């Protein structure tokens, strides 16, 4: 485009280099931040006035006082004489206990159901679909109450069901045979963990070697040596006993074994079944997202089925699966706070009792938020790390 008329000189800006757009932006920001600050200040001043009127001192000093609340079911040693701080720690441990085991079980169950939905067997895939649809469309809290009612309707300890020898199911919960773990057993388990880590390093080295000269090297002898033989050796040398403790009915209750309280068991079942329905859908869509050509190509190369799944299909499916899986794990952890409805004492439940006893509402809610934000951040960081590891490496 050409034109003979000279261009008009640029308009002078009102505020030096600042145009209208920038000025507008600044005004908006000042306005929004101003409103936010005003609202927070208003709430804060009200809160301070109200607290002083009720003679509640703010601050976390109450954490050192005696809690006096009973916690029936806990991993850590606890008595009502302990401090509020320790009660919170016990609550966090209870939350983690249900969340970690729930995540592991929900992942396994969800994967099995997701794969079942793709099965060539019509009956199996239909059943899996019905499972997913039913559990997804009913509120978790309702399911939780339902399981808890079923738990309470179980027979008393004397008439407990025994599906397998040594396993009892009664209104006292699920009682399983257990191996008592003390410090000698922990040494052996620690060695096994070290062995796993060592095997991981060795395997990376083997793969690197294969990358260099193309010769496959079997990894399983190292696995047997490091993960099984080494801990077994330590166990024999230290003379650690691995006797199974069988639960027994004495009087009105069980002695020995591992007891899963009805509250814990109901919460675990509800969380696992509910979340597994969502995980199943994620796994299914992840596997379906792998193009058919990849299966065909792998078949054409004559790869064994297990190798094909492990090396061709799964790595591609995982890229689709992992990000939504992260949010399911976060959901499961947050949903574990529904425990308060059936009296399992997780961190929210402990905070709620604390709040009722001391009136320290702000501190209690702040603690809940801190705990959940930390857990969420932890899961997110781990899953982001894992996601980055499996992500597509582009040229």
């Amino acid at each position, binding site marked *: 485009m050409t034109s003979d008329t000279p261009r008009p000189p640029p308009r002078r800006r009102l505020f030096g280099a600042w145009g209208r757009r920038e000025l507008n*932006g600044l005004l*908006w*920001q000042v306005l*929004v*931040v101003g409103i*936010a600050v005003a609202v927070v200040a208003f*709430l804060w001043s*009200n*809160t301070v*006035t*109200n*607290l002083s*009127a009720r003679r509640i001192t703010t601050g976390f000093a109450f954490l050192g006082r005696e809690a006096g609340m009973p916690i029936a079911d806990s991993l850590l040693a606890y008595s009502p004489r302990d401090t509020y701080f320790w009660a919170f720690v016990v609550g966090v441990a209870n939350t983690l206990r249900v969340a970690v085991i729930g995540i592991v079980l929900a992942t396994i169950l969800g994967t099995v159901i997701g794969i079942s939905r793709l099965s*060539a*067997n*019509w*009956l*199996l895939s239909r*059943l899996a679909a019905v499972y997913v*649809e*039913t559990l*997804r*469309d*009913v*509120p*978790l*809290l*309702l*399911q939780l*109450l*339902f399981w808890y*009612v*079923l738990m309470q*309707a179980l027979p008393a300890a004397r008439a407990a069901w025994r599906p397998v020898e040594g396993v009892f199911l009664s209104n006292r919960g699920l009682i399983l045979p257990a191996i008592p773990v003390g410090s000698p057993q922990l040494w052996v388990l620690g060695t096994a963990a070290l062995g796993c880590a060592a095997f991981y390093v060795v395997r990376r080295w083997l793969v690197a070697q294969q990358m260099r000269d193309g010769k496959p090297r079997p990894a399983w002898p190292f696995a047997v040596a490091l993960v099984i033989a080494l801990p077994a050796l330590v166990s024999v040398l230290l003379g650690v006993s691995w006797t199974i403790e069988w639960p027994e009915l004495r009087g009105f209750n069980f002695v020995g074994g591992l007891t899963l309280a009805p509250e814990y068991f109901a919460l675990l079942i509800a969380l696992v079944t509910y979340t597994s329905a969502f995980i199943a859908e994620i796994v299914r869509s992840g596997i379906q997202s792998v193009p058919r050509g990849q299966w065909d190509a792998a078949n054409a190369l004559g790869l064994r089925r297990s190798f094909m799944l492990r090396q061709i299909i799964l790595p591609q499916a995982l890229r689709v699966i992992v990000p939504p899986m992260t949010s399911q794990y976060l959901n499961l952890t*947050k*949903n574990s*706070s*529904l425990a*308060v*409805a059936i009296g399992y004492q997780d961190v*929210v439940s402990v*905070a*709620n009792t604390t*709040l009722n006893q001391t009136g320290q*509402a*702000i501190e209690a*809610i702040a603690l*809940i*938020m801190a705990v*959940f*934000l930390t857990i*969420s*951040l932890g899961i997110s960081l781990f899953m982001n790390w894992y996601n980055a590891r499996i992500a597509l490496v582009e040229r």
Partner: protein
Amino acid sequence: MTAITDIPDAPRAARRPQMGNPIVRWLRTNLFSSIPNGILTVVLLAVLAKGIFSFVQWGIANAVWLTPANDSSACRAVRGLGACWAIIPEKYRFILFGTYPFDEQWRPALSVLLFIALFYLSTRRALWRRELVYLWIGALALISALMWGGVLGLSFVSQDRWGGLPVTLILATFGLAFGFPLGILVALGRRSKLPAIRSLSVLYVELIRGVPLVSLLFMASVMFPLFMPSGFNIDKLLRAQIAIILFAGAYLAEVIRGGLQAVPRGQYEAADALGLSYWRKNRLIILPQAIRHVIPPLVNTFIAFFKDTSLVLIIGIFDLLTTAKTAIIDPAWQQFSVEVYLFVAAIYFAFCFAMSRYSRSLEAHTAAR
């Protein structure tokens, strides 16, 4: 033309000859394609048959369907063997409408029907126009008038007597009606170039999404009075409603942000080139495209959210789940909670299943385009 028809039908000839009864053929391909598959089918059939048999025995054959008013002796006679469905006719008015005055319960019933009609009309593609917004405003106003009364000769019913299904629907619908615009604003804020607005939006979304809804509801029920000037207090239901709106806003904002990211850059540039202001650009060009992109995940968020309203049970608000739980406190009927929970689960399921079916048809529709 002839060349094509002349090509021998190689793939079909390679297939196994298709003979015999079509049912047998279907069974062979879908249930008994291999020996392990056949074994699996037989095992599944056995388990399924046993499950269905015991459910029929409990839920139909041995069940008690009706008893004289407030008399559960017939039910207690079959306890453990058969279901006591008689508890549903006995308690359904309380489960559905809570403590709403008995003679006025046609009002919440009508409200529920209005809600369902509103949802149905909103799913019609042909009605996705500006008038739909006015329809929503009108319907919600009408529902408020019905529930509260005090106008048109209806007696006034204070909201602490509301309960049951209408409360669940009110919490979910008002939560969405207010959470959705909030979500749009926050999503725009999060994509804004202005640092203060962006960080405020990020802070809001991450704080709300980082904590469980239960703790937000606790905050609404316990801390709200602390936040307000003394003497000023608002109703518990409204407080829970505010918590739910804030919660929905954060989750919807994330979904809408996904849609905003899917709008091509060229659309923004074209809108700028037309000299549209920020708000007109978003209202006329960006948001219609962004929201269209994310309708299926939006519906999924609505489902999640509808189910999550049941959490108000924990702070003692009488929604559908709380009325169900309260109905079985009655000592005469205490042992028949499973039946009541199944009844309520069926109601929740009906709503959520309808929504998820709708979401799937939308997805199919988008994929077909």
